[in-house]
């Protein structure tokens, strides 16, 4: 290792030799860096999982659609509604080929004596097939029978094993909102931060479950576009058809991106995650600074000697950065391993979509290097105390 680093640096790896000379301090430093990494990874993982769980329900729909939402709706599951009239008004636009209404409602499913899950219901019209993800078109047909549902096999807090493989010929009965429903198929969506599972039902079944809702006031409206039509232009033209400030019209993918941004930057949870990342970085910088500045303090005589020999400031910066980068580059891996394990455990226990992404690992690695380098630069100030004149 020393020979390799000597070739790499073009000088003896003094920083590396210094770090490995006190294994206790090195281990403490690595544990500190790893710990800070875990803090950051956990926060980023939760934030990423929130973004992912926000995005998942949008993927029920074809991506190349426009979605009409009430102006007050920031999310797909807000309670606000808009008049179905808006759908018929849109159909006059030459590039709009069709549309369907989406009804969204939430209910609590008591599945055992003390087991309950918050279920997000999507009520879909029988003609919704062409607006939904390809995989949903076929199962949608089986919802035409009243009081049937496609149930989410990833629903939290419920043992869903009995529902796997439910078909229209062998429906699995369950009770929700004091109504007897039959599961006739499965989806795999899973809970997020806003709910524990997603069930799809026909609009008729939806109105049975939520009698106060009516077909005249959907939650959102999906519009299909003629091939080659520019969604941005069509959206801008459609807005003109409606009374001002009554509808938001966006491509499904834009609506999804906007809700992710909204959840991350305007809701407390998103801000807490961002704050957690900052805390993690501060913890890492402080730990690395402690170790590096203690190391400088312990070697003041040696550094003063090097100064007397004629080494320049750049040499000392090099040594401290060498130490910082070694701490970062080694401490990162146990941090990564722990975090990946944590993600798996959390995903297993809660069913939230949390997993390590290569982008996140690379970003945290680079961030760790930069944070440790910053600690090194801060620790450098102690170097001024090394006075070669005092050596004699």
């Amino acid at each position, binding site marked *: 290792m020393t*020979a390799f680093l*000597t*070739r790499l640096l*073009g*000088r*003896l790896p*003094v920083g590396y*030799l*210094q770090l*490995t*000379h006190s294994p206790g301090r090195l281990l403490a430093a690595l544990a500190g860096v790893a710990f800070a990494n875990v803090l950051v990874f956990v926060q980023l993982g939760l934030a990423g999982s929130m973004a992912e769980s926000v995005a998942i329900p949008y993927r029920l729909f074809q991506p190349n659609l426009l979605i009409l939402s009430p102006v007050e709706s920031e999310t797909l599951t807000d309670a606000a509604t808009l008049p179905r009239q808006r759908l018929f008004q849109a159909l006059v636009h030459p590039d709009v080929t069709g549309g369907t209404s989406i009804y969204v409602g939430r209910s609590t499913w008591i599945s055992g004596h003390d087991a309950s899950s918050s279920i997000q219901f999507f009520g879909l019209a029988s003609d919704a097939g062409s607006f939904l993800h390809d995989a949903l078109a076929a199962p949608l047909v089986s919802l035409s029978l009243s009081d049937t549902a496609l149930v989410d096999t990833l629903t939290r807090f419920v043992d869903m094993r009995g529902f796997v493989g439910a078909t229209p010929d062998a429906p699995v009965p369950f009770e929700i909102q004091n109504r007897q429903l039959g599961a006739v198929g499965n989806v795999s969506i899973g809970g997020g931060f806003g709910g524990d599972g997603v069930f799809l039902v026909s609009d008729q079944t939806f109105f049975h479950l939520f009698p106060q809702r009516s077909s005249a006031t959907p939650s959102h409206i999906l519009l299909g576009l003629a091939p080659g039509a520019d969604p941005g232009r069509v959206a801008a033209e459609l807005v003109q058809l409606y009374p001002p400030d009554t509808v938001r019209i966006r491509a499904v993918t834009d609506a999804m991106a906007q809700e992710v941004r909204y959840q991350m930057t305007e809701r407390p949870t998103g801000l807490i995650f961002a704050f957690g990342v900052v805390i993690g970085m501060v913890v890492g910088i402080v730990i690395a600074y402690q170790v590096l500045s203690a190391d400088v303090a312990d*070697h003041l*005589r*040696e550094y*003063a*000697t*090097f*100064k*007397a*020999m*004629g*080494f*320049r400031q750049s*040499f000392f910066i090099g040594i401290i950065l060498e130490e910082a980068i070694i701490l970062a580059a080694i401490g990162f891996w146990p941090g990564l391993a722990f975090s990946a394990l944590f993600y798996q455990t959390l995903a297993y226990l809660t069913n939230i979509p949390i997993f390590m992404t290569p982008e996140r690992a690379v970003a945290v690695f680079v961030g760790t290097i930069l944070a440790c380098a910053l600690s090194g630069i801060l620790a450098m100030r102690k170097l001024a105390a090394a006075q*070669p*004149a005092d*050596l*004699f």
Partner: protein
Amino acid sequence: MTEPVITVRHLDHFFGEGEASKQALFDVNLAVGRGSLTILMGPSGSGKTTLLTLMGCLREVGSGSVMLLEHELCGADEALRVDLRRRLGFVFQAHNLHDSLTARQNVMMGLQVHGRGDPARHARAADHLLGLLGLGERLHYLPGNLSGGQKQRVAIARALVSNPNIIFADEPTAALDKVSGMAAVQLFKELGRTRGTTTVMVTHDPRILDLADRIVTLEDGRIVRDHPGPARNEPLAAPV
């Protein structure tokens, strides 16, 4: 004498400022010829170390003049002093070795100050010098596993390895036994003869005085005696 590598004129030095200011050197005048061995003597607190650190670019020269290797040190900036220090070798009373570097690596640092170079060549040069100083068997020892005398010899090798123009040594033989102390000073003399390396050394060791070309005695910050040593084989410089 040969051309002077150090010329000190009217050098005063003060520690501290204002009321608390204390004068450590008074009107010191001295010229040191190339290749010579000059010994500084004098009671403790007489200013020997102060003079050494001023000539060695480790302290700023505030008044008078010190010409070192044809550069004026009075008012010289830090960059020039760092550059000049690379042409000097220091042997301190304490060895000041780096505790995480082996004997060889400590000596190699004396070469690496001059920039990138072939590490294998640096290692060979270090090994050669350590061999001359009787440490051929201890190349890979950390300072913690060397005796005091062995550490001091490593420090001497580190000062000599880059072939400095001038060696400044402050009681370098204090930690050495008689034999290796003499051997080290013989090595300085040898380098003076073969390479023109100049040595300025603080010592009280009477046997080393026998090897001196020149003996300068300080008392209370003043040079009180400046006379040729027993080994002098050249005329003294004209008084400055």
